[in-house]
């Protein structure tokens, strides 16, 4: 069973290491004559993979940080204080994250085409240029637009998980801090957040993977090929650049290396993030 599970991945690795000439000569299922990294070099240099990695990074890093900030604020306010609507607020966030994204895409697309955004120049890193906020005065086809929808959509999920975690923190901590004269912003940042470190680490790992793996938002809300994150870029390379299966394999594997590294290094956080709350509370 384990072998069956690993086989598709193994096969992809195997294909990616074979030059296409070797495959054609000996057949697809055969012992290799030569194995090398030529397919990787080809994809890496000619398909501009590093550029698409960078695009993904520009979207994912601010996305994860902002999501954690917003979600932890909401979770903090909803669990440490009681007011009339805190249950409703939690429900809105949670349910919003469960909607299929396609349900909201049509009006969202319109919003993105009609929201004016300031252009504030760009940051240039060697041959790469990243627009600050916008380069067409819109949310559509912008990094910031993709970051925004990731943040809003995932805040729902993160709020739900973090509030489950924060419920296990006794409210006396918040109360005594209030008695000591700290304001709520300070309590959130220097008292409650440090206590939530395990949950925040778990969420960061999970959110990184969600945003890295996103295909749909970038497919619909981005147009310029030079802004595409790696997942949508890969789809575009299909047919144009990927002339043989071995190149496809190399491209697909390059795209999944970062999440696999994250998974291997932070497996504990990853699994904790997915199961957080199901065993607590």
């Amino acid at each position, binding site marked *: 069973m384990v072998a069956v599970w690993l086989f598709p991945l193994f096969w992809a690795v195997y294909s990616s290491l074979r030059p296409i000439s070797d495959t054609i000569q000996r057949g697809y299922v055969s012992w290799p004559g030569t194995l090398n990294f030529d397919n990787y070099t080809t994809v890496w240099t000619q398909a501009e993979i590093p550029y698409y990695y960078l695009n993904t990074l520009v979207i994912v890093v601010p996305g994860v940080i902002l999501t954690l900030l917003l979600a932890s604020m909401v979770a903090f306010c909803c669990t440490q204080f009681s007011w009339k609507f805190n249950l409703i607020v939690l429900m809105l966030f949670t349910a919003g994250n469960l*909607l*299929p994204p*396609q349900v909201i895409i049509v009006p969202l697309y319109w919003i993105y085409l009609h929201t004016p955004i300031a252009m504030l120049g760009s940051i240039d890193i060697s041959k790469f240029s990243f627009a600050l906020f916008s380069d067409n005065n819109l949310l559509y086809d912008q990094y910031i637009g993709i970051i925004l929808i990731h943040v809003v959509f995932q805040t729902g999920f993160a709020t739900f998980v973090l509030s489950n975690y924060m419920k296990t923190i006794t409210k006396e901590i918040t109360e005594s801090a209030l008695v000591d004269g700290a304001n709520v*912003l300070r309590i959130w940042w220097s008292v409650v957040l440090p206590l939530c470190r395990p949950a925040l680490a778990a969420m960061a790992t999970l959110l990184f993977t969600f945003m890295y793996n996103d295909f749909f938002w970038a497919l619909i809300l981005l147009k310029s090929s030079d802004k595409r994150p790696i997942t949508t870029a890969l789809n575009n390379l299909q047919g144009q650049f990927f002339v043989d299966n071995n190149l496809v394999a190399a491209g697909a594997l390059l795209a999944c290396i970062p999440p696999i590294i994250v998974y291997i290094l932070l497996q504990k956080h990853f699994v904790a993030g997915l*199961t957080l709350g199901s*065993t607590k509370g």
Partner: protein
Amino acid sequence: MANTTPSLAPVRAQEASEAGALAATLLTRHDKILIVLMVGVPLTLDLLLIWGPTLASVVLSFTNWDGIGSVTGENFVGFKNYQFMLTGYTLFWPAFTHNLIWLAWLTFIATPLGMFLAVLLDREMRGTRIYQSVFFLPVVLSLVVVGFIWELQYTPTEGFINNAFGLVKSGKLIDWLGNPRINLFAVLVAASWRHIGYIMILYLAGLKSVDPSLREAARVDGATEVQTFFNVVLPVMAPINVIIVVVTAIEALRAFDIAFIINQGKNGLELLSILITNNSISEASLVGFGSAIAVILLVISLGPIILFLSRTMRTTA
């Protein structure tokens, strides 16, 4: 997309209100303004970009709007979009059926397999950690990559399966992804590769939280392992089972990426999610009509969403 929420823990409104009431008296006006802002900013964004568009989809589904200019009274056409969708549009019922098959496959094949794996791996056997890691590995991959990896198995002349079974040599090629009678199932196998590991990890966490003394007691009473599972463990796991059902349903309704990667959701791989985008964004700008399909998807999704909320937000009073 693996981001359906798998957590449980009922919200303890009762507790929160008791302790919270104390804290409230300590809050200054300044603090109250801060709280309003800390909740208000994210909430406004959520309402603007998630719930606003949801409602807008419902309204637009009654119009013939093409996305240009503003919606006026003349655009409203009543139930015409729905009428056409159910009777005239040849892709709707296939897509609807494919979503149902997707749901049935995940529910009756992939999810039980994931649960079964969890039960197997829950026993303290050697190498269980490694097995867990292996089964979970596909879950971290994007569905785009999963699609590509499986294309390497499925392509007619170059793929592994046809070559390994000698179908290329004998000329009896099976076009796994091109034949509309089988491609949905080929894709479902690929999707399950990811789904099973996801369910396994969720279920495993649930199993770990079952009080071991319950099983011990069942064993002392002479129950077999199968009896223990169905009569003791499964009922205790009821909350987790709800989560699993919800996660499975949501995954089936959200299915989009992998079908889109393979052939843009055509020729046997039509799905509701793909019809929405094809009608209103890519091809025709039939915004009103696409929204009607979105409403159908929304209404179906509300089932699992309400089930999830009612279970997790239930107060433990």
